[in-house]
Each structure stands twice: as structure tokens, then as C-alpha cells.
């Protein structure tokens, strides 16, 4: 094994181009487990800890450019207003020690269906900034996950940052596990209201071969909210609508039985989380509308 230690992003890209099999390591919270347990013996480890840019973020007009190695702890502390869904998801990651090391770049690189960040990224809307010596491209998050622990990166590409849409409405995140800490999701759900475009977006974790959006459920809800004038009148969403949305979310998952839970439990839990996160976000949206009216 060789330990490659690039001092800059350019050096990192050059190293990845020269050694496409090199395994990038940043927080190490996935890679080191595999090495410790002898599940993986990469020819090259590509240490990204020295690349300072990866630990920075910029808040822009429309989106946040989040460096691939920004630890979850920083996201929780600094980006709760701009990225509420991702901040909530970050808080469910493992433990303080892990959140101090791990970041979204690693979650995307590993591309586990159970990765905690994915449902929040899908719901908010995001693009992955991938780069190689050949150039930079932005991969829409909907096209990024290609299979179980597979993603759209080319062998010579590294993840530099993630561009995540700033919240324009309430966002929620929910995760099922046996306790509050140190839990790999049995399943997870992210939901974001986008009042500006009058749309709702979702993300389902750990209930399909890849993280997925419940697109049919989104379309149903978008139409129902539009028809009823809900975005303007701020009425309570009828239980029947919430139930239909929940059922469609459950139907969008294609879970398996495993040690953490059965497929039918997961499908059920996705529906419950969908209904709850919709209720929470919608109540928050209504509350914000009332406050805005009261102030006016």
C-alpha cells in the first residue's frame, strides 16, 4: 500500500489521474473501518486532509457551496439556517467523534443507500462538483447514485464540493433506528417545502438500492396543494391527502429484509415518516405565513 499525501487540490487531481484505483480518504470513518477489518486493501490511499479548500464553504445567493470535507459538526453549527434539512441529518450521524471527522463528500463517495446526508440532499436539491485533470462537471444529485454503493464518478474524478440549494421554506429529516446515537438508518426520510416554486421534494434513505426521491408522491402532492390553493390560503392539509402522499412515498421505496429491519417494516416506516415530516413542515410554513401577515 502507498500513502499519497497531496498538499493541494491540483496535486490531489494529478495523483488520482496517475492512480485511478487510489481510494480517497478524508474523515476515514468508512475507509478505515474497511481497512481495520481487512475488507479492503487498496493499492493507494489518497489522503485529502491536507487540502484546505475542502474544509471551506461559501454561502451564495441561491445555494451553498459545501466543501467535500466540511465535517458534519460544522454543518450543524454554521449552516442550520441555509441548510436545515442537512443540518438535521448531520445531527443524526453516529456520534460527536464521527461528526468531527466525517463529511458529505465521504457520504457521496461511499454512496451507501443508508448514508444519512442523501435524503436531505435529494429533498433540498443539489449538484455534486466533481473534478479531474480533464475538467470540472456538476452532477445533479438525482443522477449521482447509480447502484448500491455506486456513484456517477469516473475513476479519475474526485468530489470537490456539493452545491446545495438554500432553503426557501421549512425542511425536515427523520430517521428510524434503535437509539439516538451510533445508528445506521433502518430507513430515513427527508422533506423540503419549496414555496418559491410551489413544490415539495423528498428523499428516501435505506429503503431502496440507492437513495431515491418519491417522485410520484411529490407530483401528487404538488398538484393537490396547487388545486386547493394551499400555498396561498395556508390551510391544514387534509388527512386524506397526507395519507395518500404517505402511501405513495411507501410505494416509492423498494426495501429489502436485513438484520436492521424487514422490507415491510421499512415500507411502513417510510410512510409514517413521510406523513410526519409533511405535517411538521407544513405547520411551520403556516406559522411563518401567519407571522408574516401579523407583521404586515
Amino acid at each position, binding site marked *: 500500500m502507498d500513502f499519497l*499525501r497531496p498538499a493541494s487540490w491540483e496535486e490531489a487531481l494529478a495523483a488520482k489521474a496517475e492512480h485511478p484505483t487510489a481510494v480517497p480518504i478524508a474523515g476515514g470513518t468508512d475507509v478505515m473501518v474497511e481497512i*481495520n477489518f481487512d475488507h479492503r486493501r487498496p493499492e493507494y490511499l489518497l*489522503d485529502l486532509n491536507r487540502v484546505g479548500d475542502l474544509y471551506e464553504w461559501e454561502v451564495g445567493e441561491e445555494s451553498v457551496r459545501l466543501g467535500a470535507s466540511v465535517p458534519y459538526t460544522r454543518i450543524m453549527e454554521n449552516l442550520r439556517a441555509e441548510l436545515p434539512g442537512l443540518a438535521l441529518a448531520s445531527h443524526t450521524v453516529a456520534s*460527536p467523534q464521527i461528526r468531527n471527522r466525517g463529511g458529505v463528500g465521504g457520504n457521496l463517495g461511499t454512496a451507501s443507500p443508508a448514508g444519512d446526508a442523501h435524503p436531505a440532499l435529494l429533498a433540498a436539491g443539489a449538484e455534486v462538483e466533481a473534478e479531474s485533470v480533464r475538467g470540472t462537471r456538476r452532477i445533479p444529485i438525482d443522477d449521482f447514485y447509480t447502484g448500491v454503493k455506486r456513484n456517477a464518478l469516473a475513476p479519475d474524478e474526485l468530489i470537490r464540493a456539493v452545491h446545495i440549494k438554500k432553503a426557501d421554506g421549512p425542511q425536515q429529516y427523520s430517521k428510524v433506528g434503535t437509539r439516538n446515537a451510533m445508528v445506521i438508518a433502518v430507513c430515513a426520510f427527508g422533506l423540503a417545502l419549496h414555496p418559491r416554486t410551489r413544490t415539495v421534494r423528498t428523499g428516501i434513505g435505506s429503503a431502496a438500492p440507492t437513495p431515491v426521491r418519491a417522485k410520484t408522491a411529490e407530483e401528487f402532492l404538488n398538484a393537490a396543494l396547487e388545486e386547493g390553493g394551499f400555498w396561498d390560503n395556508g390551510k391544514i392539509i387534509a388527512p386524506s391527502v397526507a395519507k395518500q402522499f404517505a402511501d405513495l412515498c411507501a410505494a416509492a421505496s423498494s426495501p429489502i429484509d436485513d438484520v436492521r429491519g424487514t422490507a415491510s417494516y421499512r415500507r411502513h416506516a417510510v410512510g409514517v415518516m413521510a406523513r410526519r415530516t409533511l405535517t411538521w413542515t407544513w405547520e411551520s410554513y403556516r406559522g411563518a405565513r401567519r407571522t408574516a401577515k401579523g407583521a404586515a
Partner: protein
Amino acid sequence: MRVNFTVNGRPQEADDVWEGESLLYVLRERLGLPGSKNACEQGECGSCTVRLDGVPVCSCLVAAGQAEGRDVVTVEGLAEYARQRAEHGGCSTGSCGTPGLPGLEGTPAAGTAGASPSLGGADGRPTGGADSHTGEGTELAPIQQAFIDAGAVQCGFCTPGLLVAADEMLERNPNPTDADIREALSGNLCRCTGYEKIMDAVRLAAARQGEAV
């Protein structure tokens, strides 16, 4: 490969390090610092918790090469780290505990010296004399004393990680709520105590810290 880094205020050099080796392995097997415990090797249990540039991390998940040029504090250096922090009026950057202060090995406090090796993690092994590097012969950190006084140590395997995590929380948050303590220690598993005595110990350390100010 060779790795150079600072441990408990002293420059260290480890040779013939395998590229896939963890920081934990280097600390325990190459530098003679077995205080940080090796249990799950997957970041689940927190017993290997150290501070890397001031930040609590699982040393089993840090590749040794990633520690190059960086600053590590282990449970063996916790007492000295806490002492320097107290002298410099608190410091959350993690940089305050780093400068080695030669010749500042404290004398063992009566009554606690006997507990020092297990808490300090020296495991009773000869580690080359009393000093602030191995933690032998130094006074205990307030959090260590509180663990003893509250009876928060049973088998002791989780204790070093809990001490490092709890000490860091008290540095950041001098008046933690119970929820704050639970969250800060949520990455540290203990299979003996049921955590109640550990909670007592952290509350005790917080209270004593408050009195001292």
C-alpha cells in the same frame, strides 16, 4: 513510512508504519501509550477517543499518515493538558495544551496515586519513567478525579475515551445540562456502569470547575 507528530506536547517519530495503520495502533504499539483502548475498531465505542488538533476523534479511524505534523492529546496527557488550560484561563482551540513544559511533572496526589495508572492508562507497564507524556507521576485532571470520586470506573476499559470526551465538553460548555452530557458522551459505550455514575462524575467535575472560577 515514517510519521512525525506531537503527542501530549512532545514531538514523536514513528518508523516502519504500515500505510493502512491507524493512529490508535501507532499510539499503543509503537509509542508505548496504551491508554487509548482498542475495542471495536469501527468508531462505535469511543474507547480510543483522542484529541486531534484539539478535536475529539476516534483514533482507530484516523490513518496514521493523516496525523503527520498534527497535535494529539491522549488520556496520558490529559492531566497536563487540563493543568495548562487552567493556568491559561481556558482555551477551546486545543492549541493551549500543546507546548511541552519540561520539568513540570507534578507529584502524585496522596490517595489518588494508586488509581493513577489505570486511569492514566499506563496499565501498570513500565513506560520509561514518570513524566507528562505517559501521565505517570502527574496529578490527575479534574475530570479524572471526579470519575474516581463518583465511582464512575468499573472495569475501566471505556474510561480513557470517556475522560477525553467529557473533558473536551467541559472545556466548550462549562455548565452542561444532562442532555448536553448525554449527547457529548453518546459516542462512548460503557457496558458496566449503566452510565448513571458517569453522569454523576461529569456533573461533579462541572460543579467543581464552576467553584474554582
